[in-house]
């Protein structure tokens, strides 16, 4: 009995640990219709929910969402936007990694975190026509 409980709790711990390893960001405040998913699948996003690499965030008219990444980057997404977390890697111990966001449509505001302080060359925002390289902290990108 005891060993069974131990085994179960070990399994539970293992699952929460791996879910945390996969989590690259956390959804904060949101309004309106915000959907999240990989490839063609979408589900309704929830406050406090996690984000993973290659997730796409899609906001409807009048919708908005703000999320944080592990390195402290804060991203706000405006209405009618599609943003893909193309590459989001951050090693919390060494503070190394890379971040590539693809804004397909709409508006984002980016306040960068540790990664851009230590390795600015590893942080990029891609739009269909341009690449925004980050050397500073706070900016807006819009694809009307």
């Amino acid at each position, binding site marked *: 009995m005891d060993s069974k409980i131990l085994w179960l709790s070990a399994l539970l711990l293992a699952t929460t640990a791996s*879910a945390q390893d996969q989590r690259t960001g956390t959804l904060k405040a949101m309004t309106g219709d915000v959907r999240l998913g990989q490839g063609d699948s979408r589900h309704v996003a929830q406050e406090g929910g996690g984000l993973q690499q290659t997730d796409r965030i899609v906001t409807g008219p009048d919708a908005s969402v703000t999320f944080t990444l592990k390195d*402290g980057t804060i991203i706000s997404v*405006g209405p009618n936007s599609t943003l893909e977390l193309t590459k989001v890697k951050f090693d*919390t111990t*060494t503070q190394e990694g890379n971040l590539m966001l693809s804004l397909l449509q709409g*508006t984002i505001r980016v306040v960068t975190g540790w990664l851009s302080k230590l390795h600015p060359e590893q942080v990029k925002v891609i739009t269909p026509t341009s*690449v925004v390289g*980050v050397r500073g902290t706070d900016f807006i*990108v819009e694809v009307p």
Partner: protein
Amino acid sequence: MNRCLKLIAGLTTVGMLWACAPASRVILLPEGSGKPTAVEVKTATASQVLSSAYQTASVDADGGVALSITEPQVVQARYGRLLAQKPPAEEQFLLYFEPGGAQLTAQSTALMPVILTRARDRKSGEIIVMGHTDRVGSLEANDALSLQRAKTIRELFVAQGFKPDLVEAVGRGERAPLVPTEDEVAEPQNRRAEILVR
């Protein structure tokens, strides 16, 4: 393009700036602390650097990048809602350990409920527990020890009912000392956990 020109004909200067929508637009915002800030906008054919607040790059469909300067009121009018979404600045707390283990000092233990309240006051508030060590021992051993300390504190928050998904344990080892020392020097101020509430 025709539609664009017609629009411009009847508009004010501010309107003109936005009437002819570019393929993409980048606006550099002021850096809160007044530090220098910049972004670089690159296309297949051009590259421009924005280095002062409210400088704007407008990228056309052919990859041309035009620089201009906008004004705070214009940005506020167009992006006010987006700007208002930013959560309050993150808060930092320091916790110290009794020597030789993962037991918090009495003073640090008393801080725990304060940290919980601050995190719960936020919308989907997160707690990041970053463990640190001094420079006694190897880099790898200290990475492990600092993570162990961070995990111990994480469990305390979880035991108080804080959502496990929203509290993360991070081990920074001896990489970020509060007091810089030579290797192998014991320094109590470096044996700490830094708590970020965001």
